[in-house]
């Protein structure tokens, strides 16, 4: 278990936030934690949409059940959390 702080960009927000996650958490956990902080405070929910996570600049989302420690994400790596 290791703490990995990420730079999280959430679709619909205007800023980037520090998101500390554990290497044992899944990508799905990362999306859920991001949503917990962003919805409804800063971003409108989108019923029926699924939240996905990808490395900034990548076209492909991480598999939801992949662990953060397996994703290759490291200290302050920027990620995008977006609706699909």
């Amino acid at each position, binding site marked *: 278990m290791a703490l990995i*702080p990420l730079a999280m960009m959430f679709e619909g927000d205007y800023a980037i936030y520090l998101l500390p996650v554990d290497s044992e958490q899944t990508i799905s956990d990362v999306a859920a934690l991001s949503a917990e902080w962003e919805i409804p405070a800063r971003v409108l929910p989108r019923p029926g949409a699924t939240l996905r996570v990808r490395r900034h600049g990548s076209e492909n989302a991480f598999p939801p059940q992949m662990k953060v420690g397996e994703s290759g994400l490291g*200290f302050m790596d920027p990620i995008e959390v977006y609706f699909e």
Partner: protein
Amino acid sequence: MWDRYTDSILSGREELTQPQTIPVMCSMCQLPIIHPPGTWPFPLQKLTYRGENYLFCSEPCRWVFLEEPDRYAGVDSLDKRFARGHIQPASYEGALAYMGLAPEDRGRDATGYAWAESFREKRKTA
């Protein structure tokens, strides 16, 4: 964004207008990295130097960094200090205390959120 803040104020949920974590800062100017609403994905300026990630608010800040990278590399912005565990407690409140901002120093909306009240009636008739 302001629609969400207005909703939170009008529903008595002022706490939702406060961030749950700290914003990521530009590695050069130390200001929070933001972008105009409506731009997605965010055109982030970034750099990996000697194995460390550096994020910037703009291309000029990234350029300044690269002019003297050894001068600026390793100087941690507030968010990196937080990420490394140098700020305790590791919470938003802890970060504010680290910056010397006591609760009485932080202030509140200068109008007492009167601007939000002006939307209450509009929303009733909308």
